[in-house]
């Protein structure tokens, strides 16, 4: 309860901070629409040439794009900005301001994960969910309650996996400040725009087991199109639990290594 109150407090403070720069709002709107437009047109061009690729049709790939955009929106809503404030360029670890974070009487990982909000991303989330809606109507399948429930669970697990990966990358900063791990991850995460099946075998293994970015979008989208089995869903939920646990451990180890900055 106390944590929920804190979250709403953090969010409100962020809104106040953000609305001070109103011109950025229009620019953000433009970037969101560009992101959506290039994504949809990319799929449109591909499926203008071929009917389906490895069992993925236009509609199911569009559903996957919807998942990609939605999960990405949740990331930039709070996970991204919060962790960036910790480990990014001029972040708390670099400048030594983490002292003040560690001293607060709240769990450090909680504070590091929910501190900063970018409310504008709710618009991105709406675009992502809208894309999902259009894709589902194009799929032309009647969705049972069980499948919708499976999809929602898979989506939640997707967010959890993404959070765990980002937290782990953030924790690495305690060992090597200055190397921008999250930037590398951003590049790899773009690969989740397309289904795993569209990549060659070695890359598919890499994106499933080493940096499980592919699972984040492929399994939830497969729940909608019927390509994912219940086993895949169970595996994904298991992976999410394991990854969040492991990342939290790594983060705890990392904060112990932290030795403030200079002086």
């Amino acid at each position, binding site marked *: 309860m106390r944590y929920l109150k804190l979250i709403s407090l953090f969010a409100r403070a962020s809104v106040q901070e953000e609305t001070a720069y109103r*011109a*950025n709002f229009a*620019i953000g709107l*433009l*970037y969101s629409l*560009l992101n959506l*437009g*290039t994504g949809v*047109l*990319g799929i*449109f*061009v*591909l499926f*203008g*040439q*071929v009917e389906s*690729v*490895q069992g993925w049709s236009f509609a199911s790939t569009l559903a996957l794009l919807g998942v990609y955009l939605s999960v990405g929106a949740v990331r930039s809503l709070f996970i991204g900005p919060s962790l960036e404030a910790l480990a990014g360029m001029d972040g708390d670890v670099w400048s030594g301001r983490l002292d003040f974070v560690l001293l607060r009487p709240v769990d450090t990982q909680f504070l590091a994960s929910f501190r900063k909000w970018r409310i504008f991303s709710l618009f991105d989330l709406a675009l992502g969910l809208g894309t999902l809606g259009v894709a589902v109507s194009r799929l032309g399948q009647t969705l049972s309650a069980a499948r919708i429930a499976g999809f929602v669970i898979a989506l939640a697990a997707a967010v959890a996996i993404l959070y765990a990966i980002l937290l782990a990358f953030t924790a690495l900063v305690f060992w090597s400040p*200055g*190397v*921008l791990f999250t*930037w*590398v991850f*951003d*590049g*790899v995460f*773009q*690969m989740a*725009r*397309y289904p795993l*099946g*569209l*990549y*060659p075998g070695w*890359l598919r293994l890499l994106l499933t087991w080493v940096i499980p970015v592919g699972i984040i979008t492929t399994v939830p989208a497969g729940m909608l199109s019927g390509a994912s089995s219940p086993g895949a869903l169970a595996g994904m939920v298991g992976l999410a639990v394991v990854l969040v646990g492991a990342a939290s451990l790594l983060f705890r180890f990392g904060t112990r290594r932290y030795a403030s900055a200079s002086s």
Partner: protein
Amino acid sequence: MTNQQMGKSRKPFVVGASAPFSALKRILRTSVNLRGGWALIRGTWASWLQYRSFFFILAFGWMIPPLIYLLVWATAAGGRAIGGMTRGEFVAYYLALILVNQITYSQTNWTVGDLIRYGQMNRLLMRPLHPLFDALSSELAGKVVYLAFDLPVVIVLALILRPEMHLTPGNVLAFLPALLLAWALRFFWGYWLALLAFWATRADALLAVQDSLVFLLAGQVAPVALLPGLLHSAAVALPFRYMVGFPVEILTGQVDPVGLALGFAVQLGWLALALGLSALMWRQGVRRYSAVGG
């Protein structure tokens, strides 16, 4: 001027020359502090490495989108041909595109806007040299660093993915001027957009729009020949294809002689417009420019 005066005026110079020498002596005298010296060397080296890794990470990020489409199209083609291109030809096309895209991408355009906004243009304006040269020099330096990352990666990818390429001397000969013009067009097109920062504070939004258009129309999302109807006509007419896709198509042998002549004509036309707009923006803009801060 008397000898004495000359001696006086030369004195600081003499001191200046001996300063590093005496510093060296001091270092030698206090050479006990080897640990400190080593730490300094290691620190400097690390900071260089860090900068290099920073640039490598940027280059990595720029490489990913074409790489994704390489893999997607190669998988889609499988054992057959799409729009006359086989799997191996898609691989060759996109590997060439990764390099051409990096060579023609001008990162400096983003910094030009910042220089104007934060008033750092002052420093450059004081020099007896057009600020354009500053942009051009960092442009060149950047290319070397980025290609040092891209080339090995592309070679490794070529070994794994087995591209299919039929290089002819004629294609290579036509490719080089097309590449140079593509770079010039992309640079000056971005330059005049960036110079809009003289009037609007957030002109870099236009650069983002430009990046999206390049992604769609310059042959990244698909080779221009595979774009559907309206997109294809837009790609052929607008400048973006001539910034990236056109040289790549020449190298991979997808352009016939008529298309080649026509392409060069369109490329030169857009370049002339970009140069004219850059000159105009600069002349008008620099008059409006009033420095920010000291």
